[in-house]
């Protein structure tokens, strides 16, 4: 093991990297760069949304392209690692990306988004649901394609209050991630706005807790049982929590964030009932918008499987709104496209209206479909948009 030996190895590596980076963009195409996870933990979350984005890109290319140019896709793997994420961001920028698409989760997507921001490129989070995924946490060229987590909590609270006559709420927070806390933040913001509604108790747990027996004992020893339980949690711990709550004989309605959408996990809690989830579009074939069902079929045709959850959809929305902004700006210049995106007010998309402004590059209000799971069968029962948008100040202060 000599020094020269190692240097030789380094040279070999660098030679290969060099050949990889020579492919620079030219002017007759538009490049979309995906700095997302192709392996590791986040892959299961990035891949579906990325597939949906590819479907939209394909549609645009077949219809003659964007500004008359074909969209080309380049990718780099973040390996579900933050330091690798920064590298992946730099790599797609090197390959000439006009739009940098980054990982679903703010924590894992932000290093690549920051790299794009400092290169003056637009970055789009595939489905991050924190206010930071945008101006506040990256910079003026960054956007997210999904709807904020607090909107989900607020939607469920207001909907349950109006439609389920819920007055006594219980709040159970899994402190594992920001997403979970975001749902509960939205719930906290909405609750005082609902007349006569009150919190009869609250507790926390951790996603990895082997048992939440102590938390359940606390619910059961309440003097009055809650009308609804706001459960702010996500996979995988949420399944365990739901299973244990129901096993303990607590039958109160459970309100959730979109993270629990999907029927793939329902076999763990057979005959689950009284269970409510907000979704941007329905994967169950009963979306009020027929085009969503058509998209689901298309998705299955391309990927070989049905969408597993609503987190497929933001990928499609992302390319949709970005492409519209590019058309309107007649350029891929980042500042011009950002200006067009910020003009969007209730821009219709397949999965609900989208608005952006110079204050917020995310949705602080949004139309949600309400899915009820009854005896283990999920279906869309309602639709709800919160009565007022959650103020940016509140979101940022959390």
């Amino acid at each position: 093991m000599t020094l020269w030996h190692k240097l030789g190895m380094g040279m070999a590596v660098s030679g290969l990297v060099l050949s990889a980076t020579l492919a620079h963009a030219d002017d007759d195409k538009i490049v979309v760069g995906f700095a997302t996870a192709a392996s590791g933990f986040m892959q299961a979350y990035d891949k579906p949304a990325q597939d949906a984005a590819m479907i939209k890109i394909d549609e645009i290319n077949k219809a003659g392209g964007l500004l008359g140019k074909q969209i080309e896709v380049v990718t780099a793997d973040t390996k579900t690692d933050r330091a690798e994420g920064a590298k992946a961001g730099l790599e797609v920028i090197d390959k000439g990306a006009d739009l940098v698409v980054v990982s679903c989760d703010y924590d894992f997507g932000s290093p690549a988004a920051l790299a794009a921001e400092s290169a003056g490129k637009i970055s789009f989070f595939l489905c991050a649901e924190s206010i930071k995924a945008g101006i506040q946490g990256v910079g003026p060229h960054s956007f997210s394609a999904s709807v904020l987590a607090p909107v989900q909590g607020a939607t469920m609270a207001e909907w349950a209050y109006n439609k389920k006559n819920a007055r006594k709420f219980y709040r159970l927070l899994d402190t594992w991630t920001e997403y979970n806390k975001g749902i509960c933040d939205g719930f906290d913001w909405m609750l005082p706005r609902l007349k006569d509604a009150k919190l009869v108790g609250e507790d926390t747990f951790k996603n990895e807790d082997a048992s939440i027996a102590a938390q359940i004992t606390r619910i059961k020893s309440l003097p009055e049982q809650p009308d609804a339980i706001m459960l702010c949690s996500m996979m995988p711990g949420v399944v365990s929590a739901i299973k244990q709550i129901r096993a303990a004989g607590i039958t109160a309605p459970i309100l959730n964030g979109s993270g629990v959408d999907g029927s793939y996990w329902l076999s763990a809690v057979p005959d689950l009932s009284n269970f409510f989830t907000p979704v941007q579009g329905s994967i169950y074939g009963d979306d009020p918008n027929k085009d969503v069902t058509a998209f689901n079929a298309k998705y299955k045709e391309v990927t070989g499987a049905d969408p597993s959850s609503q987190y497929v959809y933001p990928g499609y929305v992302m390319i949709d709104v970005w492409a519209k902004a590019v058309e309107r700006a007649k350029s891929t210049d980042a500042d011009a496209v950002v200006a067009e995106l910020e003009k969007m007010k209730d821009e219709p998309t397949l999965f609900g209206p989208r608005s952006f402004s110079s204050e917020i590059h995310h949705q602080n209000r949004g139309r949600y479909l309400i899915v009820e799971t009854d005896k283990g069968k999920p279906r869309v029962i309602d639709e709800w948009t919160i009565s007022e948008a959650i103020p940016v100040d509140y979101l940022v202060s959390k």
Partner: protein
Amino acid sequence: MTEILQVVFDALSLGSLYALGALGIALIFGVMRLVNFAHGDTMAFCVFAMLWPSVDAAAIVFAGNLPAWLLIPFILAVGAGLSVLSEIIVFRRFRNTNPATMMIASFALGFVIRYFLLMLYSSRPKSIDLWSNLGLPVEILGARIPLLQVITIVTAIAILIALTFFLKRTRFGLEMRAAAENFTMARMLGVRANRVIMLAFALSGMLAAAVALILVTQTGTADIQMGGNIMLIAFIATVIGGLGSLPGAVFAGFLIGAIATVMQVVLPPEARPFRDAFVYAAVIATLIWRPNGIFMPKSAKQRV
């Protein structure tokens, strides 16, 4: 009164999981001074053995559909098999190397198992419904306790009794205890090292499988990282209990389970997220108080 009883049961059932985990680590540490960081991944492997490999979101339950009287031995065999295999392929070559090297080797092995599962099944947690009727509550002295909690506690106690019997009354057990006490001496006196070590690995693998079965019934989820947390607590329990001391490991497992449950009950809501911080502070305090663990085995006494 019933509330206190409820808390006692909560603590016991969490403690049983930790105790079984700790026992699996202590057994191997006893015979070969190896802190086996692959133990948690062995648990995850046992869980995934119930599923057919696929990266789809929905789980394809395979072995998990077997009737209980076939499934339980099958999963135990998977755990024991994987554990023995890792001894034959990997750990056998690390006899007499320093504990740090062995520990890193076990970590690397766990890493390989984890990423192997990730490749086959993807990182998305999968759902399995295993014996969900065990979730139904039963009444004990006025408290409504989920049947599974009772079964967990009873199983843990049964395993502990059976293991004690095995170690105290059989020749294998005698050899193993001798090996745990002083491996070199035991070898000189005719204990066959490979056989004892293999047996320890098989038992440890079965304990991992038992924990996996309980976990999966309780949570209904198969997740690649599911063994990790229990393994860490088990590891701590093994040390607090007195490394190499099997009763110590079990006792410390129950102790940590009890502390965590009681903290969750008594802490005010703002302090509850810091629950684990208190538990770890208690661990440091215990170690300062008794550096060699609560039950110090004779072999661990330092001669200086």
